């Protein structure tokens, strides 16, 4: 097991270096620079511009800059944002929990609906329910989620007034950030209504972000279940007179979960792309919006650091999925 994990980790290292280098080089290829961009219509005289570039170390060849940067990263220093002068890691730490909270809730939403829907669709293959689930999930998979978000706001917040429009919580509540997850912090703060407020702010964004994963999970669960249900051991279990619930729930689902877990793992990157759009629509203070802004402002350290951190998370999740895969299905572990 340990060796298996180690091999996976060693494979990750070159990718990791590649990702940071690519982010580093690409952002510098974008025309303009942070100082120009900050100057706006008033502009900046070339002499002061050159001096500031020197001060930020941006006058060096890109590879030299990269070397210096990697050196600092290895010492745990991701640099400071050029626009706000705040350490990148600090900004990330305040914004990342919001993204995680949103993404987790989206996945939970997708699982809660997607798994049962997929299982039932498989068991009742070719029924109306099955066709319905497949059609709806394909529509969900085809959904332009930026539009979906606007639509839901229009319906639930504006027309029906059921959910708040944006933000993470009513500002009435003064929540001291402990974990950064408002659902947890609001409970810790012991203020009446705070938790409910945080929850109601989460509903729409989580649905929007969860739509595509929901569709994928439902479809995946269905096809995995279909395959498993056709296997001999299930027939045997049925023949042995085990209750259908036990057969489906215990034996079939357990094995069908493997591809589903993989799919969820692979969805992490997709989820992040969705988070960028969702955060933009709901004014959600997360890292997606932060990174897009950093491109617009040419805030090199933020984009570099952000991609590095996000890349780490994506790779870590993929690793965990790999390992989980081994846990759920011992066969895989032993054959490797």
């Amino acid at each position, binding site marked *: 097991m340990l060796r298996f994990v180690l091999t996976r980790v060693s494979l990750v290292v070159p*990718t990791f270096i590649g*990702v940071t280098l690519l982010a580093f080089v690409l952002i510098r290829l974008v025309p303009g620079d942070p100082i120009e961009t900050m100057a706006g219509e008033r502009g900046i005289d070339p002499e002061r511009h050159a001096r500031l570039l020197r001060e930020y170390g941006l006058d060096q060849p890109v590879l030299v800059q990269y070397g210096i940067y990697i050196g600092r990263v290895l010492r745990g220093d991701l640099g400071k944002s050029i626009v706000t002068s705040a350490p990148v890691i600090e900004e990330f730490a305040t914004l990342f929990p919001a993204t995680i909270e949103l993404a987790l809730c989206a996945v939970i939403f997708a699982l809660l609906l997607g798994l049962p829907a997929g299982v039932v669709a498989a068991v009742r293959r070719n029924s109306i329910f099955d066709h319905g689930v497949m059609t709806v999930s394909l529509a969900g998979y*085809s959904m332009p989620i930026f539009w979906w978000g606007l639509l839901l706001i229009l319906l639930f917040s504006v027309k029906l007034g059921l959910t708040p429009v944006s933000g993470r919580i009513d500002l009435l509540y003064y929540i001291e950030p402990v974990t950064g997850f408002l659902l947890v912090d609001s409970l810790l703060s012991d203020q009446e209504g705070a938790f409910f407020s945080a929850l109601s702010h989460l509903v729409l964004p989580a649905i929007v972000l969860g739509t595509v994963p929901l569709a994928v999970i439902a479809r995946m669960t269905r096809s995995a279940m279909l395959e498993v249900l056709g296997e001999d051991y299930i027939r045997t279990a049925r023949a042995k007179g085990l209750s259908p619930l036990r057969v489906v729930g215990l034996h079939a689902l357990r094995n069908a979960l493997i591809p589903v877990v993989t799919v969820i793992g692979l969805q992490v990157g997709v989820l992040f792309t969705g988070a960028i759009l969702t955060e933009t629509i709901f004014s959600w203070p997360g890292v997606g919006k932060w990174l897009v802004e950093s491109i617009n402002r040419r805030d090199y350290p933020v984009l570099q650091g952000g991609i590095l951190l996000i890349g780490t998370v994506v790779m870590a999740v993929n690793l965990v999925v790999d390992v989980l895969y081994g846990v759920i299905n011992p066969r895989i572990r032993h054959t490797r």
Partner: protein
Amino acid sequence: MTEATLETGPVPASGAPPHPIVEFWRYFRGNPGAVGGLVVILAVLLLAVFADVVAPHSPVVTDQNAFLKPPVWQEGGSWTYPLGTDAIGRDMLSRLIHGARYSLVIGLAVVAISVLLGVVLGLIAGFAGGIVEIAIMRLMDIVLTMPSLLLAIVIVAILGPGLMNAMLAVAIVVLPHYVRLTRAAVLTELARPYVTAARVAGAGTLRLMFRTVLPNCMAPLIVQASLGISTAILDAAALGFLGLGAQPPAPEWGTMLADAREFVLRAWWVVTLPGIMILVTVLAFNLLGDGLRDALDPKLKR
């Protein structure tokens, strides 16, 4: 028409398998979703081709007396602009019709670019092996690890916003899927006896690549490509929504949505309609792709 011909066509002599295309069509036809998708796509295609004839107005001409007119069935609407007008008095219906051109072109062009590049890179990786293969596949891993929308945004930022650049960015972002797919298929095929046979017969590497191996890995590529069209349309629309795709006055649906966002509380039609168009078109391509997969993937046939 075609359908009828096929059905009444000469029945192949018993024992002889039907022509692959005929067989494919049989499977495909049995899938109502896929046929529905195909019909929608044909409709969108017709709209795109005959946009100039079908659209009642020009998609770019503004009417300064009709800013944000609602659709005909709502109070204040008129038959002049059946689906209303946008913020500077352009006919929504005409813009939506012309938008079909953009989405189809985007979908097809992106897939064409990425399939071409992907197949070539995948073939090279599969055939060359060694350091070349490692380099190509690592590069693809890197592209996959970067959040795709973010990467696309950066690429567009480098090249400058615009339709061409947005298509290129999306093509690069989806490239790894095709490379991986091709390489995997190549590796499987290379192990087969017929390849060895061709080698022994003295076929050159190029011939081996394109004449012997490639045709045999087409099925998964076709499926991936047909599904890829929908991804491409969605991604390009997302870029348009962030103001980085096709530039106004081009009536690309995502760009129209971005332009309309500020009117979400006041004029539902400018926000809702382009989204519906995107959804329907993408859904149609996905249905078609599903149908193709079922018909082409022998494993799922029975």
